[in-house]
């Protein structure tokens, strides 16, 4: 079974985000970029399926700017077999919306015919949490989102999902879309030899036009602003002082 894993290049999760003074967006120039952490988990899961003999080939796909090649090389170094870059913008500040991404992925899925697509549950930049579900809708496939455990059993995948009330296990018919949550696995680091080897793995470059998809946004970004700041608080010296403050000053006890 072939497994397809979409990966996104995003601001590194350790970087403190700065909103541009003119409200036009977030400053991404000269900022450390990495693979979206949830997508790393998705790549890792695909590799584990391959190590178990369930997956036969792992194809990583990234849709974005040319620099996403680095993200794909990371996926290849971790263990993906080949990669497809769909260069959808030249502007590093442009974010291709989940709907357009899902449409491109749908076309790639129709070409590649994977038995399973594993996405990250959300990208830590736009925090949309949508691409996997949208892809499942466009393909008419089932979806198992927010996965913390995945087992492929014959024609089905049995997936445990992290939901508001705890955990839910569902069985979805393959082919299906799984989206990875934080506790699905701990992604490996690529070793130096594997990073070298990844440079020789095949990477195809495509454009949205190759798939007949219009990536123009449906949502116009009117402005981007700083969130409300919290006022600085006070330090207390003891539990007694804390209790007194909470009772008398804050009135919350």
């Amino acid at each position, binding site marked *: 079974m072939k497994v397809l894993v979409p990966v996104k290049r995003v601001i590194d999760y350790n970087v*403190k985000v700065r909103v541009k003074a003119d409200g036009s967006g977030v400053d991404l120039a000269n900022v450390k970029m990495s693979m979206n952490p949830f997508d790393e988990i998705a790549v890792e899961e695909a590799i584990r399926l391959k190590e178990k003999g369930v997956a036969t080939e792992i194809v990583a796909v990234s849709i974005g700017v040319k620099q996403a090649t680095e993200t794909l090389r990371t996926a290849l170094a971790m263990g993906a077999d080949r990669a497809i870059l769909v260069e959808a913008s030249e502007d590093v500040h442009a974010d291709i919306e989940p709907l357009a991404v899902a449409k491109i992925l749908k076309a790639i899925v129709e070409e590649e015919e994977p038995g399973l697509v594993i996405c990250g549950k*959300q990208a830590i930049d736009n925090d*949309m949490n949508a691409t996997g579900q949208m892809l499942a809708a466009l393909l008419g496939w089932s979806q198992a989102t927010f996965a913390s455990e995945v087992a492929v059993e014959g024609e089905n995948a049995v997936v445990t999902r992290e939901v508001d009330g705890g955990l839910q296990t569902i069985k979805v018919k393959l082919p299906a879309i799984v989206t990875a949550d934080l506790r699905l696995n701990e992604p490996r680091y690529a070793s130096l030899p594997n990073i070298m080897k990844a440079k020789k793995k095949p990477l195809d470059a495509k454009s949205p036009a190759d798939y007949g998809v219009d990536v123009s946004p449906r949502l*116009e970004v009117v402005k981007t602003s700083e969130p409300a700041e919290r006022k600085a608080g006070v330090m207390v010296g003891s539990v007694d002082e804390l209790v007194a403050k909470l009772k008398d000053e804050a009135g919350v006890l």
Partner: protein
Amino acid sequence: MTVLLLAEVNKGELAVDATAKAVTAAAQLGEVTALCAGAHAAAAGEAAAKLDGVSKVLVAEDPSLDHRLAEATAALIVSLADGYDHIVAPATTDAKNVMPRVAALLDVMVISDVSGIVDADTFERPIYAGNAVQTVKSKDAKKVLTIRTSTFDAAGDGGSAPVETVAAPDGPALAEWVEDKVAASDRPELTSAGVVVSGGRGVGSEEDFKLIEALADKLGAAVGASRAAVDSGYAPNDWQVGQTGKVVAPELYIAIGISGAIQHLAGMKDSKVIVAINKDEDAPIFQVADYGLVADLFQAVPELTEKV
């Protein structure tokens, strides 16, 4: 303008708080029809009919809608979508599962986690773990939104909207429910509690997490946790607060042994009063805390439990 609101229904019961908060947001957009779907949803429909701002309730009961599987629930919503300008739901895990699927089936973009409504087409939402707020204007004919419940007050109850039943469309059964692992708890629900006590990696073990729970119980609070505490097995996944866990905004949030990573702050920094207890005086959590106490939690927490 007309709004179809997917009510939050769990095992036949209406999750009143989440639904009522989404109703407040939806009512700013137009006339609200609440949809209660499930294997059993009639009782939830009765409860939704009482919410102020709901002008009609649709009840869809069908075995295929049990456990709110995304495929059947999305198909139902799409079958009803024609008459509505907006399709809205509280941003619960169920709705985050279903609504993007609905949006794609309608060929529109989903707008997730809406924290403010500017006008019928324009919405505010947090991005980058809440480090920025984006205002977006939708060019789509229909808008599909999930609502960040922590930023809207719950609608009251005094209404008596008419209730109608609707049928679920037929479709292939692509997914099947196997089991739920839900821990029963007498504590208030995390996302609606007035007080939340959260523990982090500093608590050190599942055993010692009882200290956090004891303080919570004394205060009648819900219990939360950082990702590190959940990953380490000290606390169950549904206690996680943060960018990718639950978003809470209680009157009082007490963070214990939590460093204050941006991903955690994303889920709690709209709380009214924040208390931090941490032995490291440089912990970033102190930058958002109204009251900070530099102390060893193993001494401070039992003492606090005794004195509140």
